């Protein structure tokens, strides 16, 4: 048995719902556990038993385990212990918590993706209530929000979260790392009913295809039936130039997102509030996505205290053709949803058009008209989309057409 020391997880006065395990695998002396926990009187025995079971699962008979617990939930404790043991022993064996049956829902290529909430992959305290804020998607992030030395432990934590945390119907997304590490991420998370993979700093169709092919291999290996969608993030000038090819790289690509922090850095200019420096990139991305029949998704708005600024940003984003935006704080979710949702005026107009179209179809008329105005098919299609959106968002009931339309 390998010997050594590993310190995994987080502790400190500001840390909540996490645990730091300091594990030393020794030659002799049996297992010694020193437990410091703010929930010791209620869960002390449970924590010790869980840790002993995990050590036994990996066949470890001699170890000194110092635990500093800030009220971590069992799936977090399990991830931290597994990461510590595997860091020392190099063992590849996984210790999977039970997959909640309610986590087995499927996603659809054309579902709405207005708001997708970023969750830093190594901060378990933010996972458990994330779905309650009702984002369209949650992104468990393994890339920029995780410090390089924490990448391996975060990957195990995210895997456990995908099994043990209920995200209440949000689309289950993971942002993987770039390059080889990204493939390791996929190996770990793809078997956990992940709906969508965000591919950061995507610059070419070829690199995205490599990710898609790797996922395909994993789907075959693990007999995964449902598709795994892709959302490449365009974050460079080269990526912008290749946007359409990237969007068409695979039928699994359902959305194209833009990341403006890195893009403006690549451009060599500061990111401004007005955003003139990125108008072209954003327009180009919208056009590329729409041309490929997928959703264009805007960058995040980073001032979490400025809800008015956020709403303005969403409004202009929607006007450019974007169909969603990243959120870095749960409070941004309702603002973004409200911003992308159709306005009452838009809904009323759409209702009239749809009803006129239905009436014309019933009467066998080839031409749809509203009042004295002729209505073209694309206008009907857009009205249909608006109505679908409004129903889905709960702004109008599903049986809205049975209500009286106000004139």
């Amino acid at each position, binding site marked *: 048995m390998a010997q050594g020391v590993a310190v995994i997880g987080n502790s400190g006065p500001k840390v909540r719902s996490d645990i730091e395990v300091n594990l030393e695998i020794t030659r002799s002396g049996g297992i010694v556990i020193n437990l410091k926990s703010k*929930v*010791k009187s*209620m869960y*002390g025995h*449970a924590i010790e038993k869980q840790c002993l079971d995990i050590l036994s699962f990996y066949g470890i008979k001699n170890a000194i385990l110092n635990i500093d617990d800030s*009220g971590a939930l*069992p799936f977090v404790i399990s991830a931290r212990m597994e990461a510590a043991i595997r860091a020392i022993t190099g063992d590849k064996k996984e210790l999977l918590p039970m997959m909640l049956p309610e986590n087995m829902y499927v996603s659809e290529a054309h579902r709405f993706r207005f708001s997708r909430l970023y969750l830093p992959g190594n901060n378990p305290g933010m996972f458990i209530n994330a779905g*309650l*804020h009702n984002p369209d998607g949650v992104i468990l992030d393994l890339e920029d929000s995780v410090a390089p030395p924490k990448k391996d432990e975060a990957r195990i934590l995210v895997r456990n979260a995908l099994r043990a945390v209920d995200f209440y119907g949000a689309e289950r997304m993971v942002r993987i790392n770039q390059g080889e590490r990204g493939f390791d991420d996929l190996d770990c998370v793809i078997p956990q009913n992940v709906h969508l993979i965000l591919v950061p700093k995507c610059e070419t169709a070829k690199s995205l295809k490599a990710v898609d092919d790797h996922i395909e291999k994993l789907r075959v290996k693990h007999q995964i039936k449902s598709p795994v969608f892709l959302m490449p993030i365009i974050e460079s000038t080269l990526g912008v130039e290749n946007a359409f090819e990237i969007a068409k790289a695979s039928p699994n690509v359902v959305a194209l997102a833009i990341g403006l922090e890195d893009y403006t850095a690549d451009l060599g200019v500061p990111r401004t509030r007005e955003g003139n420096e990125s108008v072209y990139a954003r327009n180009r991305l919208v056009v590329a996505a729409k041309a490929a029949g997928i959703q264009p998704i805007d960058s995040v708005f980073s001032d979490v205290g400025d809800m008015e600024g956020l709403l303005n940003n969403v409004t202009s984003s929607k006007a450019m053709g974007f169909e969603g935006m990243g959120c870095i704080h749960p409070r941004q979710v309702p603002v973004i949803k409200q911003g992308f949702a159709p306005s009452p005026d838009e809904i009323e107009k759409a209702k009239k058009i749809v009803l006129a179209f239905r009436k014309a179809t019933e009467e066998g008329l080839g031409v749809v008209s509203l009042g004295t105005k002729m209505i073209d098919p694309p206008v009907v299609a857009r009205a249909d989309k608006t109505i679908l959106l409004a129903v889905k968002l709960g702004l109008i009931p599903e049986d809205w057409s049975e209500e009286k339309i106000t004139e």
Partner: protein
Amino acid sequence: MEMLTNAAGREVPAEINGKAAVPFQGVGKHRPAGNKYASPIPTCIDYPEDNNKVVGSLREALEKCGLKDGMTISTHHHMRDGDLVNNQVFEIAQQMGVKDLVWLPSASFPCNDPLIAMIEDGTINHIEGSMNGPLGRYVSNGGMKGMAVLRSHGGRVQAIQDGEVKIDIAVLSAPSADAFGNAKGTGGPSACGVLGYAKADYMYADRVIVVTDNLVNLPCFPMEIEGNYVDFVVVVDKIGIPEKIVSGTTQITKSPDRLLIAELTASFLEKSGLLHDGATMQAGAGGTSLAIAVYAHEILKKKGWKFSFGFGGSTKYMVQMLEEGQMGYILDAQAFDLDSVNSIEKNLNHIPYPVYNAYNYHSKGNLTTMMDIMILGATEIDVNYNGNVVTHSDGLLLHGIGGWQNCLHARNVIIPLPLFRDRIPVIVDRVTTLCGPGELIDVIVTERGIAINPRRQDLIDSVKGKGLPLITIEELKEIAESICGKPEKALFDDRVVAAIKWVDGTVIDAVRQVKK
């Protein structure tokens, strides 16, 4: 120690510190008998004709009051964590070699932690009042000689009025006072706004000392402490540290999860119809309560409605409602922030209102029963809606009751809480300590659903089919346990370290020493 089982099924001591105690009989069942307590009749002969009661020092005043072993000293908590007077009283007693005092504060704060040393050396026998943080931990570990008694704010004034506890000396800090002893909460460097907790103390104490750092000419008006009850006035450099007396500004919570709970609560208030034109509301100064007040304010503005009055502790959010026309009056026992302090000074509709007049159960009426909407907190709620506010699930005594028990008598009691804190479930099988019976708690709002007490079918009907996430309390408990795991129960020794009084002076529960 002889223990009795009370009407709530809790084992409580038959006597407290040598005096017989009445076990809890049920809500509204206990009838008091006899007359109120009265302090000895004073005479003008004993007081200076010029009515200048100023003496040289607090020690001199305490000596002149005849401070001696076994006395009960009362103080109020208006200086909060910035208090510079209350600890001094016991330091002086310690220097004088006085032992076995009983401290009867209206609340204690972290700044009072040095008093643990006074309990250890026997200067203080026991505390009858709130036990926060380290002081509570110390009591829970069995450090105090006598048994602690925890009362609500209203229970405290009831006990004083009824003579259950007799105050030998009341030492009352006052931001402004005149030489006769008239005093108030505004003015001076240590303004706290209102002195709503001082009234029973000065009316019923045998001796009253007013301590101020702002001596003004007579009359100190409008007086909240009346000089004809006061024995001595002491002038000191500083009675408190201003930034710790009131927060510069109270803040609504920034936690997205708490804000979600606040939004759900506001939505419940709106959809149930509890929020209506002319309603009355009380919410605390906690971050979630403040957020609910802000959301309620928005609803009122949208509808053109107005609260007829709100009961303080006041905050800038209540003041905003008052100033913008969504609240008729603030009746106020304490001011939590600078905006409230300023408002009391300038706004005639912001009215100091002592807890003695608002919360006393042994009184000809009680303001709390007039409140339509009462927003409260709790450390635990059980599946029978019973509430705990004094101990945590680990059994440690960590908070006072405050006005919580009194406020339970409101028409609609709503408790917004997270379903679990870190890993600790808040909805449990049985509360560790019973502070409030479930029949008085109506609605629990959590981030994972709203549970309405089945006793309140009217409330259930009022929100049916209105899109709120309704859930049973048992389901909430199950969700909490499925996420956190089932917690072990705290382990206790037999020794009772604290008695929990109900609003009528009966004993509703006891807190035992935690097992080492």
